[in-house]
């Protein structure tokens, strides 16, 4: 038996690592991977809350059981779509700028 809060702390840690990577990384691919890390952290808390909701008998309050796990699937679908479009954008950026460093992609900077 593991307390729910342990899962939430792990989930928060993964999300925090994703935010840190998003801020400090300069490679556009690694920045994109940090976003995936954040999504994974959120998914963990979704699944943990689903199990917790079931354990305390939340179905009696009208919510569909297992909703948390269903939300994880939708997050995964959105992540897959986002990855496909994002990587295509990265390829297009590399084709025009010939760099993966976000500091050199500064066309809109003043």
């Amino acid at each position, binding site marked *: 038996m593991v307390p729910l809060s342990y899962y939430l702390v792990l989930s928060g840690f993964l999300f925090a690592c994703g935010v840190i990577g998003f801020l400090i990384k300069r490679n556009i691919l690694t920045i994109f991977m940090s976003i995936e890390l954040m999504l994974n952290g959120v998914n963990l808390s979704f699944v943990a809350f689903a199990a917790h909701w079931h354990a305390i008998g939340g179905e009696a309050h009208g919510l569909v059981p297992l909703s948390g796990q269903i939300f994880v699937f939708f997050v995964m679908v959105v992540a897959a779509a986002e990855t496909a479009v994002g990587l295509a954008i990265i390829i297009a950026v590399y084709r025009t700028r010939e760099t993966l*460093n976000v500091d050199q992609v500064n066309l809109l900077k003043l």
Partner: protein
Amino acid sequence: MSVHLILFLAFGAVCVAGAINLLAQTHPINSALSLIAVMAALAGEYLLLGAEFVAAVQVIVYAGAIMVLFVFVIMLLNAGVEEQTQGSRVAVLFGIPGMLLGSILVAWVVLRHSGTEAVAAGALPGDPVTIGQLLFHDFLLPFEITSILILIAIMGAVVLASKPPTSPAGVAPAEVD
């Protein structure tokens, strides 16, 4: 110390180590491999929570498909070691202490005030039959909408990644070397 807690700590340690390694590595391929380790360990955590189908999909879709796409693009673009710049050092200086402070604060609040309700191993029936019945009855409309989303994303990716019709230099930069 129960087996459940030991397994949680083992998978959690892999998650934490992988996430920190993702930040520490400078080459994108190393970061991608540590992200795969994080996702595989998260699949183990899902199994502990009884979400069998989510764990399988996590391995197949995330650690499999999405990360293969990442590794493919890294190799396609021949991504090298990233160079640090002045701006990112400022971010390190202020970002990491701030995030650590915030994380510790959130962890303290969660651990202090959430009580000790435990989540039993396999408490929730997350088998494919139950998930499938839910997905195709209660969540049928969102499910169909996501298929449209995926279709639009595929078309967008094809349009974005395809070669521009007329290149100003006469030849696309990717073909130079």
